């Protein structure tokens, strides 16, 4: 979900760029050169995800995956999504150049909150909790973005009331689909390569094989 050029008012565009600058400064603090490739992978994924279509009824929607970005990258999800939006604006006018700030806050903010939800899993212990919290995070990402988009439209003027309502309604199926896909994906990553997940804590090892295993990894 993007907002296009030419709709929002000047102060809102400025607020978008300001918010993006602040969030980028916070989330990119102490960023190491070695993190660049991993963040870029997710940016490219975020970009490519918009080409993966999922059928619903007679129509289809494409994946957004900003929640999943939070699940994998944590705080760095914000710069990753911001760069994805910049590239989308430059490469195929998806969104637009003047709304890069607003779109970054919208999608990246969803990613950050998804990370918050994802981290809550540490307080629980049950089987397949990664699937459940991955799904919650995936849904949160899109839901928050939809809410921010609707709010941006409403603050622009009351003539956008109907559009904002339509936008929110259109988000409902996307939230459900994103949640299911992100849940399965988080479960898959947990089984196959758990180190990729943000905030991954390896299970404590029994004393007798601790040494050999830590050497092996």
């Amino acid at each position, binding site marked *: 979900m*993007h907002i*296009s*050029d*030419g*709709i929002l*008012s*000047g*102060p809102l*565009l400025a607020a978008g760029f300001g918010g993006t600058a602040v969030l980028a400064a916070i989330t*990119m603090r102490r*960023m190491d*050169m*070695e993190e*660049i*490739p*991993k963040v*870029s*992978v997710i940016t*490219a*994924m975020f*970009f*490519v995800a918009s*080409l*993966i*279509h*999922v*059928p619903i*009824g007679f129509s289809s929607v494409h*994946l957004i*995956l900003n929640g*999943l970005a939070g699940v994998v990258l944590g705080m760095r999800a914000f*710069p990753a999504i911001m*760069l*994805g939006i910049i*590239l989308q*604006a*430059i*490469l*195929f*006018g*998806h969104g*637009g*150049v*003047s709304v890069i700030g607003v779109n970054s806050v919208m999608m990246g903010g969803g990613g950050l909150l998804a990370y918050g939800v994802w981290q809550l899993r540490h307080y629980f212990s049950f089987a397949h909790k990664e699937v459940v919290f991955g799904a919650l995070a995936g849904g949160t990402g899109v839901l928050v973005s939809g809410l921010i988009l609707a709010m941006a439209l409403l603050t622009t*003027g009351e*003539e*956008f009331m*109907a*559009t904002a309502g*339509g936008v929110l309604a259109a988000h409902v199926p996307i939230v459900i689909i994103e949640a*299911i*896909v992100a*849940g*399965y*994906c988080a*479960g*898959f*990553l947990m089984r*196959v*390569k758990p180190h990729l997940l943000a905030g991954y804590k390896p299970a404590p090892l029994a004393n007798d094989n601790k040494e050999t295993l830590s050497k092996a990894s």
Partner: protein
Amino acid sequence: MPLDIDRFAHLDSPLRRWDPRFKIFSLGFFVLGVALIKAIPLGAAALVVALVLVGMAGLPLHFVVGGVQWVVLFLLPFFVIMPLSYPGEVALHVAGLPFAWEGLRLAVLIALKAIAIVLTAYTVFGSNRFDISMLALQRLKCPKIIVQMLLFTYRYVFVFLAEMQRMETAMRARGFVKKADRHTLRVIGNFVGTLLIRSFERTERIYKAMLSKGYQGEFHTLVIFKAVGMDWVKAAAVLAIVIFLFGADAAGVFKPAVQDWY
């Protein structure tokens, strides 16, 4: 859908010869100025300027149309939603729904501005090789780490698309058909996970190879930017257009399509 924005950057044109630093800065200013316009005639003027830019850049028509078509698709609903939902004076009723000319005017303004901005962005980034545009961004004091990530991502996007298409072919060969059910979503979830792991492991290999060749967070280039008089003239012309558009808009020469926007 081919995504490489710079596949026609070899075509010689006044825009290609323009120093990319000046081009990105002044046309970026133009884009922001256009985003703030409130009157339809000025929005149309901005679109004309953008079309002139496209013409000067000499980019093939199908390339530009391919870029604009997504924007147009996104904008079409506004022509229906806005007139039917605009608060205030209602001119007539269409199929029992209130139809306001003001809403239609707003939709026209939005479309004009959006198309003008996308066309401008296409000419800016379509008339130079992508790495040169990014180098210009860096010279314009864009943080180095952001420029590096943009370059990495731009490269990865094409690699991942190829990887994704390979995996999709493999899935089809095994008889997978997308349906609207939970099984499909599960397969797609695993598909995304696999794509992530494969991509990540690939970039790790690439990164290690780059480090072993002496990469230290910067790409070196033989490109040297050298501004000449013409670069300044072109930038000044664009800035004059922006000031004219913005001034005419602020002075209220034309009736704005939106009241109480600010």
